């Protein structure tokens, strides 16, 4: 029936035209969106959340990858089986596109598994409020390892990262401070890594504390006091040696007989760990003397150490 065919064809043509128009519109929209998204790669999209701490380190991927390869190639070749690319991907997946106040330990589980490695006994060195000194010490004396001398800590040291639900998923402008929210990518990472570092410790373990700090050398609110102390395994750890360091010429706020140290000792002993405390452990004090050589505490090395 020619009339019906005619109108059917018109309808078909209309549908076709509309279809093409829709496709074109979709294409234009896609192009516009794509250019907006790629253009705004390192700019803050207006929807990105704003925080008080510094943002993700620029070139995070290159830094992390480079450090990973550097660690396993140049420093610890026995870890040759580690896959740095996979490790980077698992770090990225832990936080990208996520609200940075909702990070969980599950988010970091794959990374922790890929990057953890055994720590030789008697080498674990914990620390609290002695960051500068303790790392200068492990750099000169390879007999001890802090968390930042393990692969995980080495990659993450002094680096920051956080995500955001809007593209590109990484916030380079700002990241949450702990006071803004506790479950932020950095805090969750370090808490988890510290716990694992403590769990892995065996034999004699060491801890460097600061006896010149007013608030006390040992604080329950520190990572050492709240996490590491409670994750040492008494079946693996034979002794805890405390090195209580004072700033040269600085206040002697606390010593081994001090209040907070006594508290630490009782916590450890209650966990069945043997504890020894030493004021101003000499080898570390020598390091302090490098920059204050004429101080009365700085006699040149004698073999009595």
């Amino acid at each position, binding site marked *: 029936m020619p009339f019906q065919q005619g109108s059917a064809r018109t309808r078909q043509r209309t549908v076709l035209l509309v279809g093409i128009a829709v496709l074109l519109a979709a294409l234009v929209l896609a192009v516009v969106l794509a250019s907006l998204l790629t253009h705004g790669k390192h700019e803050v999209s207006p929807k990105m959340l704003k925080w008080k701490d510094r943002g993700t*380190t*620029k*070139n995070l991927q*290159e*830094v*992390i*990858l*480079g*450090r990973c*390869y*550097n660690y396993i*190639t*140049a420093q610890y070749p026995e870890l040759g089986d580690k896959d*740095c690319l996979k490790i980077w991907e698992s770090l990225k997946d832990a936080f990208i596109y996520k609200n940075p106040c909702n990070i969980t330990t599950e988010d970091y589980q794959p990374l922790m598994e890929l990057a953890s490695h055994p720590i030789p006994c008697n080498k674990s060195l914990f620390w609290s409020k002695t960051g500068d000194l303790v790392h*200068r*010490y492990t*750099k*000169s*004396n390879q007999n001890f390892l802090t968390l930042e001398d393990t692969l995980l800590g080495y990659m993450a040291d*002094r*680096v920051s990262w956080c995500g955001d639900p809007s593209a590109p998923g990484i916030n380079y402008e700002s990241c949450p401070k702990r006071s803004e929210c506790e479950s932020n990518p950095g805090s969750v990472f370090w808490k988890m890594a510290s716990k694992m570092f403590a769990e892995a410790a065996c034999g004699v373990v060491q801890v460097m504390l600061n006896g010149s700090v007013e608030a006390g050398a040992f604080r329950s609110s520190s990572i050492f006091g709240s996490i590491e102390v409670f994750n040492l395994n008494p079946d693996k750890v034979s002794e805890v040696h405390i090195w209580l360091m004072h700033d040269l010429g600085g206040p002697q706020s606390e010593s081994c007989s001090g209040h907070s140290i006594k508290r630490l000792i009782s916590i450890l002993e209650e966990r069945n760990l043997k504890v020894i405390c030493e004021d101003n452990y000499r*080898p570390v004090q*020598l*390091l302090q*003397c*490098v*920059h204050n*050589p*004429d101080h009365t505490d*700085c006699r*040149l*090395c004698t073999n009595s*150490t």
Partner: protein
Amino acid sequence: KWKGEGTTQNLESIVIGRCYDYIRIVNPAVGEKNCSQIWEAFKNAFINKDPCSILPKDYELFINLSLHTIPPNKSLFWENNQLLVNSFAARGRRYMSLGDTLFGFFGDFLNWCGQADSPGLDYESCPTTTECENNAVESFWRMASITYAQHSSGVIHVLLNGSAAGGAYPQPGFFADFEIPNLQKEKISQIVIWVVDDIEGPDIDSCGNHTVKTLETRLKTLGYDVTCSDNYKSVMFLLCLD
């Protein structure tokens, strides 16, 4: 084929990572650098060439791209005591040794070489300096040392090992052959030499004696104000750590 170790595995990732690590974290004061470009310039110095034909000036573009100011009074030259120097310099906070500059940080403790007629790196073996002087790594450090000396100013420090066999001031040596000749006299106010013996090591050399005397004389003849001290206390403490 060659007697030396091959190129360090994952060299590209390591050095690009170090470049960004340096400009973002270690020393952000140097400002923005194009790390991919720096890697390309570095690589082009030695790939596709006979690994015994690499000259210091092949690294010229690499140096130009990675150069930055060395603060006055912070230069620390050394011979035969690299680990000690690294500890003492405290990653650039107290002194800036060659290894604390971007161009030095880039290559420290790594190894590399290419091959003729191939754009690839040789991971099997690389020539040692005994096999041929003009190899990729030797020429890199020669160029880096020359540059470091040219850009040093103020009071410069030299840390020498008084227990080293053959003397504290080695000749031939990097300091003797590439650094001293490239110091810019008009920018330098004083040269301070520290001769430090290994703990319980032999006291083979010291200020005013043997090779150190040769060094002092050479520098004074060149017109520099030179002082020298033995077993500088600060550095001794670092040695006591072992």
